């Protein structure tokens, strides 16, 4: 192995979390420290491969000396920091964040984990009564993926993946302000008129099912989508020589969607349109002439 200078070894910082002392490397976030202590911390807008935007506020914790709660996902540890992850204030804010979101957004397709947090914090979104929501028709404007923004919690992940954190295409951004803030192409044009290159990296990071493979959407509509019948196999993309890792989701010997592992050094979860959507040929083979 080559010698690579990777900087000075990190200093260790001592903090206390819920009364337990823990040593973590300098520069660690409170969230990472919590995970080390196996404290389950809810997160929605955080992803290891993306720059923290700390907007959902579901991960907030109490830090001694701080007037307000702080987001665990982006706040770095400081020596002697005292963190509370389960105080009344923390539980209250986490509950409210989940309630406020669920009262305005359809969160049914969020991961099971999210529903677990709702239960844990006793979130009752219905207590807001008849409340404004972001409900709207599904956008279907191409054959590869659909956008159902009535499921969008505005976590900014897709914008980051489409932008500086990976794809740098900037086909979508956050537009509008306040409750009207929403994910949009320029002047809300349809995707084929936008800069979108269909890499699907936005789909890869979306935690709510707002962005979905058309294949998955169609199967769900038809009632044939069945994750319990799906097997995920890791392989390498057949196009170009970069060597992107694919996770093929297969149901009934047919690829129903493609993802990529977040923790792989080549892709960090990201693909291009060929790797993401170019799989169909393999299952369309017949004896007719090709090429």
């Amino acid at each position: 192995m080559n010698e690579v200078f990777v900087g000075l070894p990190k200093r260790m910082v001592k903090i206390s979390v819920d009364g337990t002392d823990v040593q973590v490397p300098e520069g660690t976030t409170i969230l990472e420290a919590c995970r080390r202590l196996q404290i389950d911390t809810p997160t929605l807008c955080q992803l290891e491969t993306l720059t923290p935007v700390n907007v959902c506020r579901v991960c907030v914790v109490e830090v001694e000396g701080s007037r307000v709660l702080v987001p665990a996902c982006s706040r770095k540890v400081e020596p002697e920091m005292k963190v509370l992850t389960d105080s009344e204030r923390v539980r209250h804010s986490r509950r409210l964040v989940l309630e406020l979101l669920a009262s305005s957004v359809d969160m049914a397709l969020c991961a099971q984990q999210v529903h677990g947090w709702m239960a844990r914090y006793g979130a009752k979104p219905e207590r807001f009564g008849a409340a404004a929501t972001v409900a709207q028709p599904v956008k279907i404007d191409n054959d590869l993926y659909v956008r159902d923004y009535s499921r969008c919690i505005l976590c900014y992940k897709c914008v980051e993946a489409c932008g500086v954190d990976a794809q740098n295409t900037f086909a979508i951004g956050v537009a509008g302000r306040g409750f009207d803030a929403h994910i949009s192409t320029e002047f809300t044009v349809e995707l084929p008129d936008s800069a979108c290159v269909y890499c699907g990296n936005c789909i890869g990071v979306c935690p709510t099912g707002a962005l979905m493979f058309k294949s998955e959407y169609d199967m769900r509509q038809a009632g044939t989508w069945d994750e319990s019948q799906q097997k995920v196999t890791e392989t390498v993309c057949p196009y170009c020589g970069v060597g992107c890792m694919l996770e093929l989701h297969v149901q009934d010997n047919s690829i129903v969607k493609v993802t990529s592992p977040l923790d792989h050094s080549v892709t960090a979860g990201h693909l291009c349109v060929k790797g993401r959507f170019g799989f169909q040929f393999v299952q369309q083979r017949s004896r007719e002439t090709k090429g």
Partner: protein
Amino acid sequence: MFGAGGGTSSYREAEETDLIILWGSNARETHPIFFHHLLRGVRNGARLIAVDPRRTGSGEWADLWLGLDVGSDISLANAMAREIIHEGLANQEFIGRATSGYEDYARCVEAYPLERAERETGVPGEAIKEVAHAYGRADRGMICWTLGITEHHNATDNVLALINLALLTGKVGRYGCGLNPLRGQNNVQGGGDMGAIPARLPGFQDLQDPAIHQKFSSAWGGAKFPDKKGYHLSEMFEAMEHGELKSAYIVGENPARSEADQTRAVRLLSGLDHLVVQDIFLTQTAELAHIVLPAAAGWAESEGTVTNSERRVQRVRRALQPPAGARDDIEIISELARRLGSDWGRPSAEAVWDECRSLSPMHAGMAYRRLDELGGIQWPCYDEDHPGTLFLHERLWQDPVEGPRAPFHAVEHDPPVDQLTEEFPIRLTTGRRLDSFNTGVQTGGYTSPLRTREALLISPADGASLGVLDGERVRASSRRGSVEVPVRFDASLRPGLAFMTLHFPDQVSTNILTIDATDPKSGTAEFKASAIRIDKLVTAGA
């Protein structure tokens, strides 16, 4: 490069370098995920230089785009070298310790002052100078290239010209530096690794070295196999032409469509005594075959390994059952061996790989278990404690250098074979698009919203002088043939330059226009430079 053929650097080095020269590569579209790494470098402050006749999506990201004339890369590289030497930016210490042939090289590039390069490349001398100085001064710098460098009649010289620049400034063998050919297809690198090069055995071992030949022969129970260098692809076609090559077994290639000068390729393949084609599709080539062996798709229907452009060996796995009748490549080959009288049994992919590891030292440490754990391993990896190799040629920085010195190669500018004349005044260059792949056999399987019909892209100014409208069908002709194709105006093309892809042979057989002038050393054809003329179609009755 010098020794085993592979990119010297890792992708992650592109994130931590100071300067990247993307030479003859539209990585934004052809290697999008490598481009992610590159962009991270740009975001971290690296400067990006794009050298390409077209200002592509990659070029749009560059701090400086040098729009050289097609096929003038060596002139540009040599002029940069001369500037670097004159400015005192050559790394004399490195040159003296780790390289050979510098004097000849320096003499050669001395003949490339900026004025000459400007004349031959079209690029303003000042800009050449600026890039030369930037590369010379950067602490870390990488050069990456793709087919813009290699699809030329003098491909090997083009590559050598770039290697020279790295040697001249000591930009190889260090973190964040290097020379990186981005492989156009999945596992081009792996094919090379496994000996699919005329004179090599797996692990780039020399077929003609008796000791090595002996090693393989005894591992294979004393099997006899040739010790002569074989043909590369274009030599095979030449051999067909001369009647020396009468039968062929083609696995996973579609030369009837992908070869330059397609008319000739089809004629030669049809004239073979015996043609076996093993493919996942019934391709054009397969249609010419006497026997077709339907195969499983390597990436989704079988087990094995591939190697990427940073020398990372990665596992592919079976996710789907192949369609009825299609069989795994290993199975087909073993079956073939049995019919030919040698029973290998039914080895698993892992067993085949383990055999390879036992014979190829650079792959020796890459057990499946480790490939799984580490997400692939970059060769060389000599034993099971070896973590793999982030970048190559670190030895060049040892004092004294162990092993052979890295040679400079004096190479000269040699313009494209297909010359521009009054009759054929427009330079046609070819390339690829983001959403499609090669002849489009596979990517044709999905409906990409990005896909537009094949067209001949020309500058609006050329359109005006030809009197054609955007979208109008025209006849494009080269010295070899002609096709009808709609034109599309592309304001990013300069007058005199036209562009087409090879993705849609059903719509337009671009390769009827391309020339099969081929690099004698590597066997690649000059897809990047044909001379064409464009004629307005005479409408019936007009």
